[in-house]
């Protein structure tokens, strides 16, 4: 293969171009403010600042509070979607009951509805419940994702019926069968689902933006907008890049440590339609 060196060259060039903004973000987070503005750009900080920009970012806005809220928001969505998604997926896959197909199609059809269609009526509904500007209003409306049911039903269908029958003959209750037999076998699929739901919820912007007014309730994605005024007189690009790095870190960690599930989850979520 004579074309190989060219292929490597093109690949490296493409990767460098696409990764450059990320490199700009991370390196700027460790520069002093004037150095972030330096043209030509410094590829590495000449005057390494340690975590000073991160501390500054936390002074400009309650960065760590945002970070914690994002964790509460994303973790509760992951836990609930994974557990109830698996439960419903198992139910749809392994039990026959009247209206099963119709109900499943109804659940499935909710995947196709873009959230922008729901945001106005959902806001009115949550206001009726008196949940606006609270953790309940922030977390509850999005805590279950129909994609989870869809994905889990597919994996649960592949579980051998004999296994479930055998457990039933041994006198195991239905919930026990789900918990002790189905759930452990679904574990790899659950990992992919957990990762994809975490990414979605961590980055979710629209709902937290409209439902929360209180600064202390803001998640990171909305809180990030406190740093997005880089053209003002007192620029704070370094702090903005530090906060950006903090907001990217959990996703990057998932990518580094669970790359296989990460890519599998993304692909599964894309092919759902």
């Amino acid at each position, binding site marked *: 293969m004579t074309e*190989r060196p060219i*292929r490597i060259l093109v*690949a490296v060039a493409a*990767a*460098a171009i*696409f*990764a450059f903004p*990320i490199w*700009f*973000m991370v390196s700027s987070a460790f520069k002093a403010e004037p150095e972030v503005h330096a*043209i030509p750009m410094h590829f590495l900080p000449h005057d390494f600042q340690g975590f000073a920009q991160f501390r500054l970012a936390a002074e400009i806005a309650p960065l760590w509070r945002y970070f914690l809220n994002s964790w509460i928001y994303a973790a509760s969505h992951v836990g609930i979607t994974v557990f*109830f*998604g698996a439960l*419903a997926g198992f*139910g*749809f896959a392994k*039990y026959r*009951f009247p209206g099963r197909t119709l109900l499943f199609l*109804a659940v499935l059809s909710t995947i*196709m*509805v*873009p959230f*922008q*269609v*729901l*945001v*106005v*009526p*959902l*806001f*009115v*509904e949550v206001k009726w419940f008196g949940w606006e500007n609270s953790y309940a209003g922030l977390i509850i409306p999005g805590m*279950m994702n*129909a994609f989870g049911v869809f994905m889990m039903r597919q994996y649960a269908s592949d579980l051998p019926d004999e296994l479930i029958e055998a457990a039933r003959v041994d006198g195991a209750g239905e919930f026990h069968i*789900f918990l002790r037999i189905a759930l452990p076998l679904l574990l790899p699929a659950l990992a992919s689902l957990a990762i994809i739901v975490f990414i979605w919820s961590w*980055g979710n*912007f*629209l709902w937290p933006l*409209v439902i929360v007014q209180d600064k202390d309730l803001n998640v990171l*994605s*909305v809180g*990030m*907008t406190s740093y*997005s005024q*880089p*053209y003002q007189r007192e620029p704070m*690009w370094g702090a*903005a*890049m530090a906060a*950006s790095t903090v*907001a*990217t870190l959990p*996703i990057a960690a998932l*990518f580094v440590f669970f*790359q296989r599930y990460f890519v599998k989850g*993304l*692909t599964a979520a*894309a*092919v759902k*339609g």
Partner: protein
Amino acid sequence: MFVLPAVGFFAAFNVFPMLFGLYLSFTDYDLLNPPLWVGFDNFVNLFADRLFLTALHNTLMFVLGATLPVWALSLLAALLFDQAFRGRDIIKATFFLPVLPPVVVVAVIWRVLLHPNGVMTWLIGGRWGLTEIRWLADAVLAPLSMIAVHDWAAIPFFMVIWLAGLAGIPAELREAAALDGAGPVRSFWYIELPHLRATAVLVAALSSINAFQTFALQYVIPTDPGGPANSTLVLGLLVLKYGFQYFRMGDAAAVSMVMFVMILIVTMIQLRFNRRD
């Protein structure tokens, strides 16, 4: 019953709001007085509404810019990284990095990079001796900047989808083609491409569905959301503006229904293509 919690939840927080939104789109509602039924007035008014027509035009342009280049370039990237070469995995992972930051972070990074005297001006304008490019303050450049930022994150994402499609092609087929002396271009044309039909349709549909819903970049990157001069005002932003700035819930719901219909049309076309196979 195991499905009950999920079904109950979706009924309350998906199906009900969907129907309620449809109802709201036929009313005038300001959150204070009860909704007033106005029939099709909201929809009729939209098509005489300058702001809506601008947003519709901007959205369609954005969809165009966020699908065609993404489709072609993500396919090229997938073909590039599909073959084994030294260091491929680490180079591919580096290329994939733009997928990681949440969209608001993408917006914040690019807001800094696209400063008129900033890094992008230095990298691109420097060649022609330009020291200032108004990426975001120009009504022609600003929407193009939004497309470029979007595509930057979308191309590596869709590369993964193409790679999954490529992985589904039997290796023997490709080896046989290579043994028969087919070059990479002919092999692609006769072996890979026919097998990638479903993936090609999926990438086209998904990228346009995502693009129809865009709003976060247009909200965060420009100095004013949708600016300058409404050149980056898209339908997703208009829903927010009517709903949560002017509290015209009926109009906001009507705009969202128009968005929904356009996305449904894309989905229909996708299903049609898939059925033909």
